[in-house]
């Protein structure tokens, strides 16, 4: 209990580090429900291409999207390292992200995180909310809201 308190006081948060292409991204651990190995994804017709379909997670039907396609990268290559990260979001319920690899869990203090200057003038959607520095590495922290909001 004491340890937890100290962590909170220092205003730190834990992030799961994932790899997509050659970039590392962080997802706040508080929204992560589960990480599962790649399984059979049932395609759902007539939906956006980045929505790969649905999976069965212990009797629950969960929609799965490809982060690669959502970010405009090329189609996923399913390898042994491929994982589906199941997030539990308030407005959408559970949703899965297909990622190339899940690397580690890191703890970042708020001083280690820098907001990204978002260029609002350009009509470009950015999925990165801020950047965290962990040692010499830079980790882009994903903005889950903009990832899950569907553009009309």
């Amino acid at each position: 209990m004491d340890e937890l308190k100290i962590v909170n006081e220092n205003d730190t948060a834990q992030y799961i580090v994932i790899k997509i292409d050659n970039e590392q991204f962080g997802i706040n651990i508080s929204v992560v429900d589960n990480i599962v190995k790649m399984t059979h994804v049932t395609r759902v017709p007539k939906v956006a291409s980045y929505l790969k379909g649905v999976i069965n997670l212990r009797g629950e039907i969960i929609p799965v999207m490809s982060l690669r396609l959502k970010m405009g990268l090329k189609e996923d290559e399913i390898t042994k390292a491929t994982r589906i990260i199941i997030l539990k979001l308030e407005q959408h319920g559970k949703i899965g992200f297909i990622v190339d690899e899940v690397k580690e869990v890191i703890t970042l203090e708020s001083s280690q995180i820098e907001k990204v200057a978002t260029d609002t003038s350009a009509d470009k959607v950015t999925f990165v909310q801020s950047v965290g520095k962990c040692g010499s590495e830079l980790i882009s922290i994903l903005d889950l809201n903009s990832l899950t909001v569907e553009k009309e």
Partner: protein
Amino acid sequence: MDVSQYLDIFLDETKEHLQNLNNQILDLEQDSENMDTINEIFRAAHSLKGMAGTMGYKRMQNLTHDMENVFSEVRNGAIKVTPDMVDVLFKCLDALEGYLSTIQETSDEGTNENEPLIKALNDFLNGKGGAQPKKEEAKAEEPAEETAAADAPASEAGLVEKWQNIKLTDTEKHLFEKAKEEGKFFYGLTVYIQESCILKAARAFLVFKALEEHGEIILSKPSTQDIEDEKFDFDFSVIVVSGEPIEKVVEAIKSVSEIEDAVGRALTDADFNAVEAGSSSQESTAKTTAVASTEGDKPKASGEKKAAGKPVVNRTVRVDIEKLDVLMNLVSELIIAKNSLVSASNTDDAQRSSSFNEQIEYLESVTTNLHESVMKVRMVPIESVVSKFPRMIRDMQKTLNKKMELHMSGEETELDRTVVDEIGDPLMHLLRNSADHGLESAEVRKQRGKSEVGNIFLKAYQDGNNVVIEVGDDGNGIDVAKVRDKAIQKGTITPEQAENMSDKEIIDLLFLPSFSTAEKVSEISGRGVGLDVVKSKIEALSGEVEVRSKLGEGSTWIIRLPLTLAIIQALMVIVGDEKYAISLGSIQTIEDIPTSEIRLVENKEVIQLRGTVIPLIRLNDVVGIESSKAPDDNLVVVIVKKGDRLAGLVVDELIGQQEIVIKSLGKYISKCKFISGATILGDGEVALIIDANALI
């Protein structure tokens, strides 16, 4: 004592009584002399009053009390039922429903006194000529009787003043002396509760509460704890110290409903002397004072609890005990099946496979039956919803000044509880539409050679896996031309589009949200108020609504609802390399059609099957996948039905029939209209369920 644990029962029963009253008063309006009806109304009102009183809802109790008075006079023949009275009575019922819904939300009855209604009721009692003196006479008699009862109860009513058996101790005597000095009286009282009373403890609590208002309870027999636990017969005795005359105290007790009588008198010195002579014990001294003080605290405590007022959720299903028995039996069979499987796995290989199969078949039949029974438990007759409609039509008759009659049939048709709860509003909407816009005024009806009284029909019946509810009228029907003009004028469709649209398609425009919210559409088209809401609500229940109308003859709205929501029988098919499920309820037949039989009509593929032309829908095109079959292979066509329309779904392969559990795809993937959900197959794979209705 806390009555909140009875709240659910109270809400349920009050609703029943209110509905009963509604029906009976409707009957009364038709036949104002029927004694049976009047008696029934009186009884229902009386129970309502009693229950409201038990729960401590004073305002509700007051209103029902006055209603009961009116009925009582009607029953005695002192006043006659008049249309005015019926109107007021209906308003009272509405007010009671108001109380009820407030209670449901906050567990408090609110502050609306409904004084105008109470006044109106009293006007019936007082203002109606000959009734007045009689009523007053009756009132004068009552107190007289009460005093008499209080004076000489034992001999008169056969009620024994059991309080005399209470042992009095020095403490009481001390208190008695003190009270005497303060000019207060010591009363010994015995309260009799009606033997029909169900919540004795609650009644006793209310008596205590009433007594607290007039004085202080010193002692009770049985003890307060026992009374709370209902450890007493139909009477209990108390010793009370009060500054008020005995009549007032007795009256206060009698104001609690279901109290048969209360008898008692003031204690005198002699009582104490007599007791003392009989060697009073000291043992109960400490106890009694403790009881007295806790009793003082308790009502306050429960009062505070009530003030906290949390919303009350009331989602119960009343289940026939037989249905539960069946369930219980099935569950025990399930356990047996499980045990047999366990023992089968212990036998040697040779026997194993055959006994396994046997047991699995057994297990299958048990689970299917279990599912059916559980579904049945969830089923309730739609009566609970439709029974309020006659009253509604009656009210509309007055406000719209049209004559109309409601014919209902199939009230006993059963639907899933969740569906029944939701279906009320859409049905009411359609009935209102029919009454308001559908039926013509009496004059117009006469001109058209129809009977002056308009007819509205509500029909419910089961049709395969669906329940169909039809709402119809013999009124004007929908004027298609007017709807078309309005749609063009509003820019919903272009004139060119309108040319090509069938009457049916144009009528369907009424369901568009933009159409109904448009001003004055209801005048022009005669329809359209909130129909989009009706449609969306029914679609949310995976049902559908369509309308058939003939200008001048009336229209019928047909609602189809699935019998069950969670588990269905489905046909599993393969399209490309994907598996899909189609609900068996919508499937007519499955046909093997050679490609040579395909014809083109308006560039669409159709087949002729036993004389009917059926459009083909290639599922692989719909779901966007390559078909695994060669172009000139025979087609596997699943003929599906929606209402009276047919369509043929072309699939690649059939797997077979299967019982599937419907799961939602979630909000995130909801755009796909023809996928109604997903299900998990035996191997853990997910298959999507195709909503054939959405494809036709």
